[in-house]
C-alpha cells in the first residue's frame, strides 16, 4: 500500500467506471439511488447486479490485500444504526451521496451536486470534530 499511488489508482478506477457506465448506459452512478431502486423498484435485476458486483469487488479486494490502516474495532450497534438511518434517509431526501453528488455530479458541474457535496462534507467534518 502506498499513500499516493493507492488513492490515485483507486480514484482513477472510480472515475473510469463512472465514465464507462455513462457512455454505455447513459446514467450516472449513484450508490444510494441504485440501492433504493433495488429495494423499491419493480425492475430489480440490474440494480441487483450492480450492488452485488459492488459488494464482491469491494469485499474481495479487502480480503485479498493488506491494509495500511486497520479497520476500526467493532463499534456499538447503536452508533452504527443511528449512522445508517441518517445516511439512508438523508441521501434519499438530498437525492444523492458521495458517488452521485460527489463524483458524478461535480464531474458534470451540477450546481445542486456541488452545494450538496459542500454541505455533507462540512456536516461530516463538524460531526467528527464534535465527537472527538
Amino acid at each position, binding site marked *: 500500500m502506498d499513500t499516493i499511488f493507492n*488513492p*490515485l489508482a483507486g*480514484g*482513477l*478506477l*472510480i*472515475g*473510469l*467506471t463512472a*465514465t*464507462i*457506465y*455513462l*457512455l*454505455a*448506459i*447513459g446514467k450516472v452512478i449513484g*450508490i444510494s439511488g441504485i*440501492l*433504493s431502486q433495488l*429495494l423499491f423498484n419493480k425492475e430489480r435485476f*440490474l440494480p441487483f447486479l450492480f*450492488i452485488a*458486483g*459492488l*459488494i464482491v*469487488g*469491494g*469485499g*474481495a*479486494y479487502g480480503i485479498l490485500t493488506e*491494509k495500511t*490502516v486497520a*479497520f476500526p474495532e467493532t*463499534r456499538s450497534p447503536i452508533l*452504527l444504526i*443511528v449512522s*445508517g*438511518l*441518517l*445516511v*439512508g434517509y*438523508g*441521501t*434519499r431526501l*438530498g*437525492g444523492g*451521496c458521495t458517488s452521485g453528488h460527489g*463524483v458524478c455530479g461535480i464531474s*458534470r458541474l451540477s450546481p*445542486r451536486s456541488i452545494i450538496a457535496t459542500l454541505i*455533507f*462534507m*462540512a456536516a*461530516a*467534518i463538524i460531526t*467528527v*470534530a464534535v*465527537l*472527538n
Partner: protein
Amino acid sequence: MYAIVTLAAGLLFGLGLAFSEMTNPTVVLGFLDIFGEWNPSLIIVMASAITVGMIGYAVKRKRMAPMLASKWQVPTLRHIDSKLIIGSSLFGIGWGISGYCPGPGLTALVNNPSEGFYFVAALIVGSGLHYFQTRITQK
C-alpha cells in the same frame, strides 16, 4: 450486454473504493478529522475520480446517445431546495458518526460484517422511511 456492463461497473467501482481504502472507515474518519491527525488521501481519490469523470462528460456532450441505450438519463434538476440542504446535512452527520457512506457501508458486509450488518439494516430502513413518506405525501 447491458447486464454485463452493469455487473462489471459494480465490480470495478467496488475495487476502486477498496483500492483507495474508502472502504475503511478509519481512513475516511481520518480524512474528515481536519482539526486532528488529518489524512488527506481522500482528496486524491476525489480529485482523480472527478478529473476522469469530467473527461467522460466532455465525450458525452459530443455524442447523441449512449452506446447501449436510446437516450441519456443524466439528472436534469438544477434548483437548490430545502430537501437538498436538509438531506445532505443529515447524510453528512451520519457519515461523520461512522465513516460509512452507502458504498463502503455495503462492502462492510464482507470487510467487517459485525459492523456492516447493523449499518446496512439501518441504511435500508432509513431509505425506506423516505420512500414511504414520499408515497404518503403524494397521495
